[in-house]
């Protein structure tokens, strides 16, 4: 069961079952939808951005535990970050879960990701990377303001 715990860690299960900041954000001034048509993960991410800083974040939608947990944690960690910091975090998170780094770099990559490091298990499950990154792609799209629905396939 140890591999199980790696991917479906208590934190991920917790956020998956009881996502934080779940619901529409009335004060949002940026939003974007994300859709993974292959497995049906669907979410809308809401951001309130003020003077280049994300002051509030929330999301709605339905999907697998990984995508829900990722969105939930995203809304927690980006609050208070500048747009540039959030984008940098997206980049790091994406590289981390897509496992493009060497195995030895795992702990370096994990450091600086804080609690997002719990998604390290996704590296062993390439088919689930799209689930983990859906909310982040939506955030990227929301910040770019192009309003397009992102699709991860």
């Amino acid at each position, binding site marked *: *069961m140890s*591999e*199980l715990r790696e*991917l*479906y860690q208590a934190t991920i*299960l917790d956020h*998956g*079952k009881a996502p934080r900041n779940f619901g529409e954000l009335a004060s949002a001034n940026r939003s974007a939808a994300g859709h993974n048509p*292959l*497995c*049906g*993960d*669907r979410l809308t991410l809401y951001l309130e951005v003020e003077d280049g800083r994300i002051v509030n974040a929330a999301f709605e939608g339905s*999907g*697998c*535990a*990984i995508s829900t947990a990722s969105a939930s944690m995203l809304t927690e960690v980006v609050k208070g970050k500048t747009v540039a910091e959030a984008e940098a975090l997206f980049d790091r998170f994406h590289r981390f879960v897509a496992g493009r780094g060497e195995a030895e770099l795992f702990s370096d990559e994990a450091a600086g990701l804080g609690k997002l490091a719990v998604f390290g298990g996704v590296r062993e*499950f390439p088919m*689930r990377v799209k*689930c983990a990154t859906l909310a982040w792609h939506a955030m990227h799209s929301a910040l770019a303001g192009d309003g397009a629905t992102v699709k991860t396939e």
Partner: protein
Amino acid sequence: MSRLGPSDVARLRKEFPILDQEVNGHPLVYLDNAATSQKPRAVIEAVSHHYERDNANIHRGVHALAQRSTAGYEGAREKLARFIGAPDAREVVFTRGTTEALNLVACAFGPSVLGTGDEILLTEMEHHSNIVPWQLLCERTGAKLVVAPIDDRGQLDVAAFRERLSPRTKIAAFTHVSNALGTVNPVEELVALARGAGAATVVDGAQAVPHMAVDVSALGCDFYALSGHKMFGPTGIGALFGRAERLDAMPPWQGGGEMILTVTFDGSEYADVPHKFEAGTPNVAGAVGLGAAVDHLEAIGMERIAAWERELLDHGTEVLSAVPQLRLVGTAERKAGVLSFLVDGVHSHDVGTILDLEGIAVRTGHHCAQPVMDHFGVAATTRASLAFYNTKEELDALGAGLRKVLELFA
């Protein structure tokens, strides 16, 4: 011939080398046969032997290897024709698989019978490969799609199918067995209804041929498509059965070498059926492997295979029905070995990943049947699909794996 029992199956399993392995520390439990089947040693060796001893290009070579290769290829065609009850081997066209076979019919047969306002009748349970080629054909010809619905058990509403047949229906295309639901359609009846309305009939047999005896002559359909990789043969090979008068009347669909008699810049003469539809060097090794798969299945007997799979399906249904929070999707009276289900509160992808960690291979998603998913109001299901080498113990393992899923998500 006696029924297949557990000791027969244990013996048959040993012929499939891939089944003997561990995944994530557990014995592999392969329940994704609707996606693709595993291959017996005889098929693997037939392909290897072809490349080790016989390989050459087929049909026109005068040397020994060319003759052996051609014999292997055409021999496989004859075996397949007998296996599916085709009256003549020339009515069996080798293709890459079911998808290509259906596209062949849509491209080379469709335009000759369809004009603006004409209709193609499908069912709601079709695989995308038996939907999209017809959509493309409609765009080309101005014809339109008509769909016969399924009920909440996943059964085709045959009365609705009959009602939707009209004088404008020129093609009726439907599946023999649903890959998403396991429903077995009353194909003889559907063919008869469609023929009565003057429509040509196209049957998607991909999920039927590996699991039951099929006789295309008895069915009376115009076209029947199948995939080698689903019936314990290699990937990249399949076939289209087409009644001779249909195939003879059709123009070629891909042009090139092998499908011609003579070529000049003023014009070319085409080869006779079936070669007319087999342009270029084909998947010779694949056909040889498919021939070996047919031999393998005939040695066991399709009736025995169907009976064993029936026992497995019943056992699997019982096991799954006892799992709390689990709902079976596809509960038709006549079913093949497909168990599609939902687990309340747990997304299919999570179910599938956790089962994988237990060594169990199932498929999650829309199974290339999004309209079926839409009918049941879900984005995805988890699907366990059987072959004759599965065992009741494997289905018990599936049940245990699902209990682990529930524990984790409690």
